Structure formats: C-alpha cells, structure tokens
C-alpha cells in the first residue's frame, strides 16, 4: 500500500524535502533530529494533552448536524474546531510548537500570519509561556484584518508589517524566514500550516492529528464505527485538513475530500486552486505544487478567504492529490459565502469563510442517505463578520 506519511528523508512521494539556505540548516536540522524524540517523551505528551484539555477546551465536539443532514439527505457530522480557544484549529499546533520550543531552549518566537488566526494563536501561547513573540503579517493583510492585529497586540506580540513583494501571506512567510536567518540561535519559528521544510509539515500534521484521533472515538460512540465514509476539509496550506485526515490516511474505506478556494472561478485568473493551477516547484523550503509563472516566479493567488490564499499546498496534500488518494474539489467565493450563511440559518453556527468552502461542496456532490460524512469545522466566523456584512449587505 502506498505510504501517505512522510518518509525517513522528509518526502511524501516526490514532494517535501528541505530546500533551505545553509543559514537555516542548523536550526532545521536541530528540529529534525529532536522533534520525534521530544514528542514521544511522556512529560511532553502529558503537558500537551493537559493544555489541550484545560486551556484549549478539547475534545472539541463531534456534532451531528441534523438540519443540514436533512437538507442534503445524508448524515453530516461537524468536527467543532471552531469551539477551541482562539476560535480555530490553529491553537493545537501552536501549543505543540511552543512546548517544543521550550524544550529546545528557545526564548524568542516568530510566526507568519495571513488572516491573523495563526498569529493570534501564536501570540496566545507566547503569553501563556511568557515568551517574546514577533508576528510577520503582510501590510495589506494588516489593513484588512485590523481586529486580529489588535488581538495580537493585546496579547503582547509585536506585529511587523511585511513590506516586500505582494505584502500578503507569502511575503510574511519570507520575512519570518529572513528573521530566522538573522537570529539563528535563540529563535524558534512556529510555522502555522503543514508547509515549509521537513520536518515542519510532519510536525504540524502530528500536532493537528488530535482532530482525527478524537473523531475516531467520537464517531464510535455515536455511530458505532470509527470510520466515516468521507472526511472533508478546506485546504490552503492544509493544516486542518492534515489533522482531519491523519488517522484515516491508510483506511481505504474512508474517502478523503479536499476543498480548495476557487476565488472567482478556477480559471478566472483570480483563484487559489493550487491542485489545478499549480505545478511542481519549490516554495518556502519544500517541493510541492505551487502557483507560478512559466518562468518559475511565484504568483499571487486570490480568495475571499484570507486563510486559503496561499500559492502552494502542503507536500502531504500534493502527494494525496497526485496519487488520487484524496479528491480535490474547489468552491468559489460565492459558493462559500452562501454555504456559510446557510449553516448560520440551519444550525446556528457562524463558520469562518475558510470553513465555508468545505461546506459548499454539498451543493456540488451528492452523498448517499446512509453515508457518514465528517466535515472539519475548522474555525468560527467572528473574524469574518465584516466580510459577511459587505457581501450580503446585512
């Protein structure tokens, strides 16, 4: 059977690896040599689990969405990552990485953020641990995500605008990498998605894997079986998707669906559907599928959702796409916004716009009445209120 996990060289099939400048080698190598060992230590696990329970509020509920299920004539469960502290799955990873950073003796934390969710989750754990926190954020994103910028500042983080390139997420990531090059000894870089040089995609996936670990026993309680027929998640870099799929990757009877942001339409020129528009290449230290010109210059994606407009996709997902293990679908801005509003009205849950992309596929794909479909409800929509207000003229 095909292996969908990372191999010993840091690759998922042909994707992954660590394409980093020599200046980053000692840091990344230190992490590579230690991350599995540290994660396996009983006191690390105990501290991680305790914080997830008492601080994050895990386990997050697996909620049977009765009215949504009725509408689409199938059985839909929502994995409520939106109910986590700070409002999304991002905190699972930042808790894990801050504990990792402490064990590696680092006392300065840097992060990149697009919409600000990962920045907030990082600022939160830095406050919790009393560590210095610097968050890089594109100048354009700072302007359009003001509440999250304020949150990070209240939590004690320094928010540094990325002024280079297109001044959005990919440039914030570049700036964070540059910071790490300039501070090679005392700094840990908390990458927020399942991207970057090995071991980041695997480490982030393993911290997010708690999502599917819980789905297994929660579904067993409610449906009498651990495996659903489908697991579905939205995908930008792909951290919530990686965590949602992880324990099902090698369960053949579980179908995996990844939903990308089609923006104004996959072929409109304003899209973030990397699996369709991307080609193999190198971005932020890994080989994966990415959106680029014929000349290998990385292009700027578009989506109404700031969390999905990344020009690449995590290497694990590139492999899932290439091997056909996961079905990749795309939802437009309009699909997603309507699906989001629909969930508000049917279930009393306001989802993040990222998450709404995953919900949008029920309009495009028909499931059987007895199919058990688990959707990762990756984040809550409070941060997106202004977008919803503008879009629907509420």
């Amino acid at each position, binding site marked *: 059977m095909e292996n969908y996990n990372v191999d010993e060289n840091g690759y998922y099939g042909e994707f992954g690896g*660590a394409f980093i400048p020599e200046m980053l080698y000692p840091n990344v190598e230190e992490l590579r040599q230690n991350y599995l060992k540290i994660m396996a230590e009983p006191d690390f696990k105990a501290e991680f689990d305790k914080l997830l329970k008492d601080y994050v509020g895990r386990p997050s509920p697996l909620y049977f969405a009765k009215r949504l299920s009725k509408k689409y004539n199938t059985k839909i469960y929502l994995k409520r990552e939106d109910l986590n502290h700070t409002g999304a799955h991002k905190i699972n990873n930042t808790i894990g990485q801050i504990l990792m950073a402490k064990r590696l003796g680092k006392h300065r934390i840097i992060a990149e953020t697009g919409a600000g969710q990962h920045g907030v989750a990082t600022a939160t754990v830095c406050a919790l641990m009393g560590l210095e926190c610097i968050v890089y954020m594109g100048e354009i994103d700072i302007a359009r995500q003001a509440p999250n910028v304020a949150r990070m500042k209240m939590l004690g983080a320094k928010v540094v605008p990325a002024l280079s390139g297109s001044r959005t997420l990919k440039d914030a990531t570049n700036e964070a990498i540059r910071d790490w090059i300039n501070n090679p000894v005392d700094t840990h870089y908390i990458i927020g998605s399942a991207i970057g040089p090995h071991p980041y995609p695997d480490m982030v996936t393993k911290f997010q894997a708690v999502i599917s670990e819980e789905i297994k026993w929660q579904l067993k309680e409610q449906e009498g079986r651990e495996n659903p027929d489908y697991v579905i998640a939205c995908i930008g870099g792909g951290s919530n998707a990686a965590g949602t799929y992880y324990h099902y990757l090698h369960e053949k009877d579980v179908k995996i669906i990844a939903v990308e942001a089609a923006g104004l339409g996959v072929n409109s020129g304003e899209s973030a559907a990397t699996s369709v528009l991307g080609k193999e290449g190198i971005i932020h230290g890994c080989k994966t599928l990415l959106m680029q010109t014929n000349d290998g210059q990385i292009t700027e994606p578009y989506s109404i959702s700031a969390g999905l407009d990344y020009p690449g996709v995590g290497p694990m997902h590139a492999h899932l796409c290439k091997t056909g293990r996961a079905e990749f679908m795309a939802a437009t801005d309009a699909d997603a916004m309507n699906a989001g509003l629909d969930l508000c009205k049917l279930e009393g849950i306001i989802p993040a716009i990222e998450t709404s992309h995953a919900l949008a596929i029920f309009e495009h794909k028909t499931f059987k009445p007895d199919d058990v479909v688990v959707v990762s409800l990756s984040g809550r929509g409070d941060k997106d209120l202004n977008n919803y207000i503008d879009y629907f003229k509420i």
Partner: protein
Amino acid sequence: MNRIQTKLQDNKKLLSIYFTAGYPSINDTVSIIKDLETNGVDMIEIGLPFSDPLADGPTIQASSTQALKNGMTTELLFEQLKDIRASVNIPLIIMGYFNPMFQYGVEAFCKKCKEVGVDGLIIPDLPVDVYHKEYQAIFEKYGLINVFLITPQTSDERIKYIDSISNGFIYMVSSASTTGAQSGFGETQTKYFKRIGDMKLKNPQVIGFGISNNETFTQATTYAKGAIIGSAFVKHITNNGPKSIKNFVDKILNK
C-alpha cells in the same frame, strides 16, 4: 580548467561583485558586466531575479522586484549573455534561487550556461545533499562549478562535507544574516574567519555578506582568497546609476 579555478590560482586577492540582471534597466546586464571587468573586478555573480528571495535583505529584494517588473526572465538572461564571451574573460557565475532553474529544467539550464560561457552557479536554496544526489552529475557534464555557502553556525563536520563536494571555492557567509544586513566585522567574525582558515580546506574561501568598502574588503581578504560585494554595489548603482561603476570599484580597491 574552468575559468573560476584558473582565477583562483592568481597570486592576488579577488574582488567579486554581485548585481541583479535586468536592473536598474532591462538592458543594463551586459554593460554592467563589461564595466566591472574593465575596472578590475575579478569575478562576477549575475543575479537571476526571483519573486521570493528569502535569503536576501531589502536592497537585493527591491532590485529583484524591479528586474522582474522590467521583464527579466531566464530565457532573456541567456539571450543577453549569448555573445558575452566575445569581450569578457573573467569568471561569470549565475546566482539565483532554485525554482526558476527547476522550471527551466536543470539540465537545459546547465546546458545553456555552458553555451553562453557561464562558469558556475550559486543556488542558496539548493541544499548540498540534494545537489550531490540528484544534480551533481549534470553540473559536471556541462563543466559547471557549484558554489556552496557556509556560515558561522555550520559545523566542522558539515564544512568538511561541503569541501569534499566543492571544486571551486567556498562562499563563506560572514555572519548569520540575510544579504546587506551587516556592516563591518567584529571579533566574532575574525575568530570565525581564522577558525575556517585553520581547517586547511582543499577549496579556497571567498567571504561574502557585510563587505561594503575598502576597510571591510581588506579585512576579509586578510583571511580569505577573496571577497564578494552585493548589496553595497546594488545600492551604489541604485543611487548613482550603472555608469558609475569605476567610482565604486576604485573606492573598494583604494585606487
């Protein structure tokens, strides 16, 4: 013998200059190369611009962004360089990130380099182990020298490994930083320069990052075979235009 190897045997300290191809104007590439040679520069790194140059500081980032806006592409660079060997004799190295080369096709890229007379490559984000496993044979087929970086944090064991894979020079990054971030060398740097010197590597070392004037050039070449100037030169032509190269080089060499 490759031009880089020949040049490294010269009984003098080498001055190497980096500039971004297609900057400040799209057609400045060739005239900058010629002017650098005429004014006594020993070796040139031609920067192939990239949208996401993550080892570079603001100066080289801005020049790359502008070069891309000007319309610079890999194909166009090779086109501009096609007759360069009719008039230029010093070693030419293309310095750029891996993705544009990967998209061009690594073998096709190497073949073109040989055709136009490029002698070597510096690719900061192509790690030495990947190079060794996947690409070294191709580089060697086309007689190209690949140059690797070491930093103050690189372990002795890894430096020895890099030395064993190299067949030109080792690019010694003066301090842990992106380009253009430092000015001047302190005790930490000189200690590091000495430490590497004492390792008696088979490849000579050329120091880069943090060199911007005669003082830092002299300091660096006390400990190494040569020195590379990038950001300071790009800044100079940004402020003074590409016709002011003599003035810059004279100052560095204290002529």
